[in-house]
């Protein structure tokens, strides 16, 4: 997938911006607060129908404006052109996603058609933060690669909400007849989700190991493991997970009623990264964390490419900030082997680091929401 053109109106500080991109690396340079990240956000809208930074569509809306829109032209690997358009109207609280002028009423149906891999500083919480961040990583990735997973996940979230409503109500929390049908559904959807996640981890592992040795150059062995609340056999089946979930629900029955929330199920699971057999979250250095995170994204890229049969677009927001020149260069060399990439940075486009790459990197300068091709700026 290649994004050749984008046009933003009233989006963050872009009142009216139009840009044409290179199919390889696009370097977006500029000072703080000029609208670099907004551009990344806009691209995420075109591919995922929503922002990767916020769940509220009114946030990117420019001050004092009632609507924003984003037009984009994307070309798939086999050469088909898509004109994707996002329109958001604040007064009508209306959001439209159009592909080739056709309104897509079910937005989730568009997810996965335009695969994206993104990395921004806050995502360091995937390796450093709590389990919720890692589940989110799993969910976003799996939802892009499997529709049935997304449907199950949405169902599951609803089940947990309804179940919590029973558990938090003193009058109903001990009512067996009332909670049991919800348990049955929780087990049904929950086991499918767990099974899906375990299979995913097994499929994802080879991508992770391969990329880690290439990027870090270290000999350490990286591993990842899906951790449920109970022991499962190696090639577990849905029915085994169902039985285990059922047992766990019986075991935690009183604790759940006491605390008033659902304590059993995939919404409590974790993904554990290990280096040489040690959990990363406790032992890894800052540098190792960063390397693992970048590796994770490269692995995500090759995994999505396989699962969606389409080359993902790579969005990298401010990733050079903690890397020395040598590592930046190495990363750029590796990025050149991928498809289309967008990188924002505060490093000047004239920096020596980028000079070596010549025309392989298309450079843009963003200033107060307006953008110029770096080369055209030189001419002036």
């Amino acid at each position: 997938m290649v994004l050749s053109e984008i046009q933003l109106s009233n989006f963050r500080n872009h009142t009216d911006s139009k840009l044409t991109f290179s199919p390889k690396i696009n370097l977006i340079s500029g000072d703080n607060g000029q609208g670099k990240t907004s551009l990344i956000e806009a691209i995420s809208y075109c591919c995922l129908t929503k922002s990767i930074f916020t769940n509220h569509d009114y946030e990117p809306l420019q001050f004092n404006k009632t609507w924003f829109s984003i037009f984009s032209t994307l070309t798939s690997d086999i050469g088909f052109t898509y004109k994707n358009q996002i329109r958001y109207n604040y007064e009508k609280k209306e959001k439209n996603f159009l592909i080739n002028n056709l309104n897509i009423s079910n937005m989730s149906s568009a997810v996965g058609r335009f695969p994206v891999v993104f990395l921004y500083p806050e995502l360091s919480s995937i390796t450093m933060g709590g389990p919720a961040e890692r589940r989110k990583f799993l969910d976003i990735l799996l939802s892009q690669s499997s529709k049935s997973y997304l449907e199950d996940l949405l169902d599951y979230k609803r089940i947990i909400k309804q179940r919590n409503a029973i558990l938090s109500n003193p009058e109903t929390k001990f009512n067996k007849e009332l909670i049991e049908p919800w348990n049955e559904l929780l087990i049904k959807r929950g086991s499918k989700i767990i099974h899906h996640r375990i299979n995913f981890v097994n499929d994802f592992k080879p991508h992770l190991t391969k990329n880690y040795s290439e990027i870090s150059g270290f000999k350490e062995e990286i591993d990842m493991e899906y951790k449920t609340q109970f022991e499962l056999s190696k090639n577990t089946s849905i029915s085994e997970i169902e039985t285990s979930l059922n047992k766990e629900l019986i075991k935690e029955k009183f604790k759940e009623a006491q605390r008033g929330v659902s304590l059993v199920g995939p919404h409590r699971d974790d993904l554990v990264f290990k280096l040489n057999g040690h959990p990363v979250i406790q032992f890894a250095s800052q540098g190792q964390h960063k390397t693992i995170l970048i590796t994770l994204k490269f692995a995500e890229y090759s995994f999505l490419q396989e699962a969606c049969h389409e080359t993902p677009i790579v969005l990298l927001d401010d990733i050079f900030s903690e890397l020395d020149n040598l590592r930046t260069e190495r990363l750029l060399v590796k990025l050149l082997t991928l498809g289309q990439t967008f990188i924002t940075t505060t490093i000047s486009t004239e920096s020596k680091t980028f000079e070596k790459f010549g025309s392989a990197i298309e450079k843009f300068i963003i200033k107060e929401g307006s953008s110029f091709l770096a080369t055209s700026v030189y001419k002036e």
Partner: protein
Amino acid sequence: MIYTSESFEQLVEHFTKLPGIGRKTAQRLALFILKMNHEEVNQFATSLINVKEKIRYCSSCCNITEQNPCPVCSSTKRINSLICVVEEPNDLLAIERTNDYNGLYHVLGGALSPLDNITPEQLKIKELLRRFENQDIEEIILALNPTIEGETTSLYLARLLKPLGIKISRIARGIPIGASLEFTDDATLSRALEGRVAL
């Protein structure tokens, strides 16, 4: 408001209480009423009152009706041992339109949803159980909506009715007639695969 009359505003106010009607639509409806002739408005008003005064819930199936028991329940041509459980009267009408069902019904009046404080007491479940005392029921068909809430209600009822030793089934879900597999959404397709039928 100074530009309209009080009675007009009152009517608009009443229309906005209806589901799916906003202020603008309410104003349009009120203006339309104003343009209708006197007799039509009279009939309209009477039918509103009639609906409230004459319509009762059938003491047996809990469907809306003017006579008790309702025409379905009192019909001699229907199979008395078969009951189809639905959420709302609309669902009953939908099944009736098929002309393929010849049993009785039971209208629950919704589906279980703890978030909206809808518990089994709010639904006509007690009424359903009471029917087993006076009637010889052999089979129950659960025809609830394919939502999480509908599914849970089906499970709840299945657990409740199982000890009675009757046949309990749920309507199939899957690919609509006339649609092609290619254009069926993934969730429907995967549920259809789950509920496949042996040949």
